């Protein structure tokens, strides 16, 4: 049994320590918001937060997460009201939507570390998340909007 905490909930997982964390999250815990894209840490669709870092769950083994704290898109906010989720919704960012949970999880790390990112900062943070629909311009605009919302929220 391997103990992990996902979105604040403790789980004892009976699985091979070498199983990709993505399989544990999707197939064992049933949290299917995190997507399988390439399986090679090249596309970012499987991005989750492991101890506050935007880790690629497709190449991260379960044993790396043992005793650690995981957050998936389902646990990013209590009511889907993270500034990024609100901005995404307001600006109709997704097209097919497949990459978007990974995009948001990466964007959340950027906003945590840089409350007012420039276009270059956004490129630096988001270049590992690929969108086959090409929604990059809307992603960038939504991150700027979320940053503004986050700053406004902090003032209230």
């Amino acid at each position: 049994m391997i103990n992990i905490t996902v979105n604040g909930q403790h789980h004892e997982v009976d699985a091979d320590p070498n199983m990709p964390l993505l399989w544990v999250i999707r197939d064992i815990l049933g949290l299917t918001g995190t997507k399988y894209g390439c399986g090679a840490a090249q596309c970012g669709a499987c991005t989750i937060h492991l101890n506050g870092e935007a880790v690629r769950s497709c190449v991260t083994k379960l044993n790396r997460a043992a005793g650690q704290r995981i957050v998936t898109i389902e646990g990013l906010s209590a009511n889907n009201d993270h500034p990024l989720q609100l901005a995404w919704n307001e600006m109709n960012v997704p097209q097919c939507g497949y990459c978007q949970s990974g995009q948001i999880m990466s964007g959340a790390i950027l906003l945590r570390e840089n409350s007012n990112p420039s276009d270059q900062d956004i490129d630096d943070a988001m270049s590992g998340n690929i969108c086959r629909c090409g929604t990059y311009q809307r992603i960038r605009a939504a991150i700027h909007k979320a940053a503004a919302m986050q700053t406004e929220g902090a003032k209230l």
Partner: protein
Amino acid sequence: MKKLIVIILIASITGLVTLSFRPETVKTDKYLVLPKDSVGSVKAFMSVYTVLKSARCMNCHPAGDSPLQGDDSHIHTMNVKRGADGKGLYSVRCSNCHQAENTAGLHMPPGNPKWGLPPANMRMVFQGRTPRQLALQLLDPKQNGGRTKAQLIEHMAHDDLVGWAWHPGDGRTLPPMSRPAFAAQVRLWIAKGAYAPSAKAK
């Protein structure tokens, strides 16, 4: 008077013996020293240079702020950035993809617990350096991470991340000589005087 001279003599000898065992003397220069030999030293460094310029070493010692990939040393996909600590930026941190060990399979992320570039304030660039430039850089504590010659040898011979170059995972070529052979050439280079090649050396 004779007694005084004997006492002074004993005190002097005791002092000299004590000084010769000062711990910093042992710490700073504990490496093989041979008679100075500029030709032999440079010859050994040129062997070291072929390893440092190989893709497995140079790819993480780039001239720019992005690591390199592959035997052709192309810019890392995603245009990954160095960051202040050499471990990446924001959501593109090295260990987000690179695990503590190589991920199995062709083109999968290689790994090591210390995976990363040199930090931004100590870039330790190999790419584009001539043999002379690289030798002088390696010997300069202000450019080599503050290492003494003994620590430089230790780093080249035993550091775990340096050692990854000889266990790089599927599909990656190895440096042009074994790790023990490389370490021996580093020791020889320094033992014979740590000479830098001439500016004409390539």
